[in-house]
């Protein structure tokens, strides 16, 4: 055992004198950096308490995070009504899990329907007003909850639109193709901030007098159009990977265009690009931070606001480390998921070839 470890170290760390030197230098830097970081973040840090005065250790003041955690997660949502947020989240997660149910026939349709129902119910719960619950204006939505609302709703709108755009871009009809190409390249060529500005400032101009569009809805429309363009390109890659013969066989069997797409081509195309789609999801999740620029307070936004609280000045580092950690966990988790699916898919594909 020890001999194996020694041999591994010699080959991978100390292969040549220069390599050995590099290894030692890196290890030294790592050690020198790790010690004060560990001290600040864990050993000298303060974990429990209520007020600023509880931070005496000289290290990180995690009390700050704990004290404002409610706001970080729920934004400005009234405390008494926070159960509605939890319930809405549970509904959407449950609908999401439907997708993973084994041996489900017509999985795509069932999942789609469940998701739509769950999202409508969640929306009603969050907004209130209609179903007998007190209304909570979208201005009070914030924090992690708002980030998730934008991500999920944005994706739910962007995905079908993206698929349609991808199909349109490969269409034989020049008018349809030209419109789709123009649409896709427009949204892909401009920064998301300009799209958000456009949605928040120009949308009221586009609509007739009196039509009031909720702020959040404007942001959602901007985000959805933007994400749809990127998804369209990802799906298009998948469509190109499906062999021509598939469509030909379907036509020979007498299936029409939409039926061919839905039952034969798209399932194969989408399976090819799951990693690409998940990448788009990760990108969208990170991009929700931009709504701060149009005056909405997502997760990063409420952390940023908390940093300006006079009672808690000077804890910028703690705030950003905490926010960074949360974002990192979600995004890294999603990318690992994508890798796992890719690996499983590759194995399955190999198994399927006759």
């Amino acid at each position, binding site marked *: 055992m020890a001999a194996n470890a020694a*041999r591994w170290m010699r080959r991978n760390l100390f292969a040549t004198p220069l390599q050995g030197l590099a290894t030692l230098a890196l290890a030294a830097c790592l050690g020198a950096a790790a010690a004060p970081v560990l001290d600040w973040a864990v050993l000298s840090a303060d974990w429990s308490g209520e007020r600023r005065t509880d931070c005496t250790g000289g290290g990180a003041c995690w009390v700050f995070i704990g004290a404002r955690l409610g706001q970080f997660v729920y934004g400005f949502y009234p405390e008494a009504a926070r159960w509605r947020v939890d319930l809405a989240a549970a509904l959407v997660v449950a609908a999401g899990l439907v997708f993973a149910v084994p041996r489900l026939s017509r999985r795509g349709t069932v999942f789609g329907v469940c998701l739509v129902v769950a999202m409508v119910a969640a929306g009603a719960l969050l907004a209130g007003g209609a179903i007998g619950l007190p209304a909570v204006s979208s201005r009070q939505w914030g924090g992690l909850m708002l980030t998730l609302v934008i991500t999920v709703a944005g994706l739910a709108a962007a995905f079908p639109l993206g698929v349609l755009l991808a199909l349109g871009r490969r269409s034989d009809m020049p008018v349809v193709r030209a419109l789709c190409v123009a649409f896709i390249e427009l949204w892909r060529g401009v920064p998301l901030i300009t799209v958000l500005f456009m949605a928040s400032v120009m949308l009221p101009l586009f609509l007739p007098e009196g039509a009031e569009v909720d702020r959040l809805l404007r942001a959602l429309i901007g985000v959805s159009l933007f994400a749809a363009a990127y998804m369209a390109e990802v799906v298009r890659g998948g469509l190109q990977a499906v062999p021509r013969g598939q469509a030909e066989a379907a036509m020979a069997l007498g299936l029409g265009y939409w039926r061919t797409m839905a039952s034969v081509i798209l399932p194969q195309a989408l399976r090819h690009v799951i990693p690409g789609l998940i990448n788009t999801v990760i990108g969208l999740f990170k991009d929700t931070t931009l709504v701060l620029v149009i005056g909405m307070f997502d997760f990063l936004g409420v952390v940023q606001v908390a940093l300006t609280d006079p009672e808690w000045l000077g804890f910028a580092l703690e705030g950003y480390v905490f926010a960074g950690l949360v974002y990192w966990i979600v995004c890294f988790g999603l990318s690992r998921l994508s890798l796992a699916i890719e690996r499983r898919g590759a194995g399955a594909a190999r198994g399927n070839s006759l």
Partner: protein
Amino acid sequence: MTMPAVEMTDIHKWFGSHHALRGIGLTVAAGERVVVCGPSGSGKSTLVRCINGLETFDEGRLSVNGIELADDPATLRRVRRSVGMVFQQFNLFPHLTVLENLCLAPVRAGGVARREAEDRARRYLERVRIPEQADKYPGQLSGGQQQRVAIARALCMEPAIMLFDEPTSALDPEMIKEVLDVIVELAGDGRTMICVTHEMGLARAMADRIVFMDEGRIVEAAAPDVFFTAPSSSRARLFLSRILHH
């Protein structure tokens, strides 16, 4: 007694849990020409790739021209300067011309001056009978021509030992002969040659010894006339009956 070109003692290698080489013991004398054959999966490629360090072995000892093979890069480079290899997939460098492919290693690893390297390259291109292709890119040549360039490239380092890993297995049938002719002609140079191949005609034409492997072991080693007419092991007999029918 002159030092053997290759000396392998009790070599074992595992790929994960698969025992690829089981106690290989082989001594190749300087100037000897050996053909290694056997069914697929028998470990013939692995054995040959151990000789120039492209595969590492887990147990045993291997020395090439007196140099013990070890894990450190300096030893490996020393060994590789005197061992040339020709691959099944040619592995020519597509972004360099034929001439540049041939000159790269002598200049960068052999310490040869550029002018002299070019002269040497053109000489070997003549030897493999395609001197006019010097300024073309590999992608513009046929498979047979590419493999001959690959042979010339290995020769440009003027190695003492030449290894061939199934040199004709990736070629279209009509191009196999031109490559085999070159190899047979090289065999007359007195260089040590170890060739993994299915082409028994090559073995008959140039081998001093045929080494037959099966399931990671050397089953039989004999001179060609003995091996082809009266193999002593049943597995060798089975193998020969399968491949010599056409």
